């Protein structure tokens, strides 16, 4: 069974306590409709298990079929530099149907960031290596499409539909010390 080869580190975009019994890692693509469908489900699970779960998002843009995926990832990485990663991440998924330069400008405005600085970061490919590193780590870990989830390092083979069950059983396993 595939497992996470790149451990979660402080380089990751992470939400929730670092010592949480559960760590959920998503490899996602901002333009992938299945990731868009998973977004509210993940949100709901993070609320339900608040304090018990740490969530990490890593980039896996399928850029040949999703031409906006890398640009959208740049917006989130740019926001991360200013401490606003999750706000940008959420706005991108909530407005997935509108991905494009207009939306990126509106997101910058909403977060008080400079769209010109975003353009500069894009022009110098500032986040290309980081995004590719995320993706290559995902490929090595057996990511087989987007979204792919790993719960405490183990791939969730049932995908988004199996996430709630996987969380429940992993948490039960942690409690019983197995």
């Amino acid at each position, binding site marked *: 069974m595939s497992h996470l080869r790149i451990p979660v580190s402080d380089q990751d975009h992470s939400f929730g306590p670092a010592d949480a019994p559960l760590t959920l890692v998503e490899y996602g693509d901002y333009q992938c409709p299945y990731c868009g469908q998973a977004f509210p489900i993940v949100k709901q699970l993070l609320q339900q298990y608040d304090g018990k779960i740490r969530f990490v998002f890593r980039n896996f843009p399928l850029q*040949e079929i999703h031409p906006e995926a890398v640009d959208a990832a740049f917006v989130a990485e740019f926001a991360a530099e200013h401490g606003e990663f999750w706000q940008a991440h959420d706005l991108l998924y909530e407005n997935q149907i509108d991905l494009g330069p207009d939306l990126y400008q509106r997101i910058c405005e909403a977060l008080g960031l400079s769209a010109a600085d975003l353009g500069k970061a894009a022009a110098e490919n500032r986040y290309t290596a980081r995004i590719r590193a995320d993706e290559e780590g995902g490929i090595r870990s057996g990511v*087989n*499409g987007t979204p792919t989830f790993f719960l405490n390092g183990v791939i969730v083979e049932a995908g988004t539909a199996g996430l709630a069950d996987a969380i429940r059983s992993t948490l039960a396993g942690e409690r019983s010390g197995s």
Partner: protein
Amino acid sequence: MGYVEHHPKGVLGAGTEAPDFTLHRSPDDTVTLSGLRGQPVVLVFYPADWSAVCGDELNVFNEAVPLLAAHGAELFGISVDGVWSHRAFVADRGFAFALLSDFEPKGVVSRRYGAYDFHTGTSTRALFVIDSAGVISWSHLSPIDVNPGVDGVLDALDALTTSATPSR
């Protein structure tokens, strides 16, 4: 043997010489496996162009092309679809690797690799890593609805690199 051909029951395993083949990669160009000696070859058999899981599987392989190239490996997808379907599928998905057409006689290469489903008349979802001498070093058969990812292929290529490195 007349027209009767022996077919393996499962996918050909490690240590087996990879059956040679010549298949079309485009309407007027072919690929011959034995012509690729000296480099590893990765074969991705899949059931059909355009179907959802295959698309995901091949999209992820497409993202992995630089990692495979770092091993000097050549990657091919193989299905029973015709060259024109392959051409449209490659153009639509932007694949940076060739799709080979196991079309006539239908599925004969897939059959020889044990990667053919006689009920559906399509290739199964099977992966092969062939070493530079033309011997299968790793193979894997996935359930038809399970996308295998690229990690197994990369691990197998790593193992080839390790075994090919002279001991220090």
